[in-house]
């Protein structure tokens, strides 16, 4: 699998790069918990963070003029363990300069075609609002507590009402996870694009419809395999989103995140127009080998690490 991926990108003139796993800054996303380690330089010491994805370092390379790049590396997310999760996992992340989201989706389809060698049915592309309406009958872009609650009750998911309350983003996570995602991509690649704006920290808002963001997610057999964006390149907007996420982390008593000023400086210098996506290679291997759990495709899952 790794060899095929490298041949695929080499033939498309995308550079392989390697960036540090340890960084002085952390991600700010309140949904991603990071690992903290300590760098000892007696008499001083400094906190360093294991990356939750290589995104920030790769964007700094893009701003420095690298052109299109890809990377295969480990990423770390604290507290995530389950049938589809291991706190240490392998990511394939790539950025295409001058690609919009549609062009990136073409490339994702080509890569999966290559990896699965014709074993999958024809790929599907569908907007978030369309697929959400198909399985729930609800409008994903406009929140209605009454309509969402009525649907949850009818589906015998009353817990949704206590958990999600008035939060549109939580409701979307809940209903999409339990009522939509399981149906996506039956033995085929399913690309869902046009995520509601409240679900997209690092994507640009769509120029024609500001209620949706230029974000895409990749599914096969109901398993989420990756997430991509038409990347936000506005440093001021990025800074504002960092600050609001840092405030949210404070309100929820989460570990304090260190804002990546070096990324902001790079964005200020200028990130080229680009789209990027990260795929979970362990999960792709699960699908390729028809394995029921991520532990089946890892040498030693976290319980045995």
């Amino acid at each position: 699998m790794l060899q095929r991926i490298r041949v695929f990108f080499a033939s498309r003139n995308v550079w392989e790069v390697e960036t540090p796993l340890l960084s002085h800054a952390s991600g700010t996303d309140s949904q991603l918990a990071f690992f903290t380690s300590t760098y000892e330089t007696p008499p001083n010491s400094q906190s360093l963070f294991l990356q939750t994805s290589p995104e920030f370092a790769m964007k700094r390379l893009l701003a420095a003029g690298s052109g299109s790049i890809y990377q295969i590396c480990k990423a770390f997310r604290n507290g995530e363990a389950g049938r589809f999760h291991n706190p240490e996992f392998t990511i394939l992340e790539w950025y295409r300069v001058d690609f919009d989201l549609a062009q990136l989706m073409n490339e994702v389809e080509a890569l999966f075609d290559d990896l699965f060698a014709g074993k999958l049915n024809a790929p599907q592309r569908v907007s978030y609002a369309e697929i959400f309406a198909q399985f729930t009958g609800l409008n994903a872009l406009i929140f209605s507590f009454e309509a969402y609650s009525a649907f949850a009750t009818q589906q015998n998911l009353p817990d949704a009402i206590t958990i999600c309350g008035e939060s549109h983003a939580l409701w979307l996570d809940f209903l999409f996870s339990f009522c939509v995602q399981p149906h996506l991509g039956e033995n085929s690649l399913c690309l869902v694009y046009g995520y509601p704006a409240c679900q997209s920290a690092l994507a640009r808002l769509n120029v024609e419809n500001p209620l949706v963001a230029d974000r895409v997610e990749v599914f096969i057999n109901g398993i989420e395999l990756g997430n991509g964006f038409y990347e936000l390149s506005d440093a001021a907007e990025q800074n504002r989103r960092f600050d609001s996420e840092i405030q949210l982390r404070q309100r929820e008593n989460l570990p304090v995140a260190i804002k990546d000023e070096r990324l902001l400086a790079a964005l200020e210098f200028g990130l080229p127009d680009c789209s990027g996506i990260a795929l979970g290679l362990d999960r792709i291997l699960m699908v390729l080998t028809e394995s029921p759990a991520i532990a089946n495709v890892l040498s030693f899952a976290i319980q045995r690490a």
Partner: protein
Amino acid sequence: MAVYSTSEFRAGLKLMLDNDPCSIIENEFVKPGKGQAFNRVRIRNLKTGRVMERTFKSGETLEGADVVDVEMQYLYNDGDYRHFMMQDTFEQYQADAKIVGDAGLWLKDQDMCTVTLWNDLPLAITPANFVELEIVETDPGVRGDTSGGGGKPAKLSTGAVVRVPLFVAQNEFIKVDTRTGEYISRVKE
């Protein structure tokens, strides 16, 4: 009592949910890459036996339930209550018909069974998997019939009615699987 978070929910863990003691059957971690993490949990209400599916926000906690399974000897039925005794301490417990439920059909005086205690009070009774009971009423035996074609109902000393082969006669002892209510064999006294 200890408090458990969703990441500690494992099969067999006993917890309090909606004021009832429950036992976890299965716990699945569900998390979108960029979204809220949930735990989808299959859980059995130990009072009603009902299995339900519930969803929690990851990191939520539930209080542990003081539920233990204890081997006890069944003593007797006083009409309102059945009485059980711990073998080592001779401590006695009583349980009414609602708690005993269908287990009562298989309880013979002096037999061992499992009593589930919640806060030191009986919550449920589980008979041994196999019990040996006397047939108190059945149609006369038919000589020569050894195959299992059809069979006939037989009433046992505890009140249970099971289907037995035609050759089995009244006052004989038989072995029964209490989980299915099926006849296993005759028992020579």
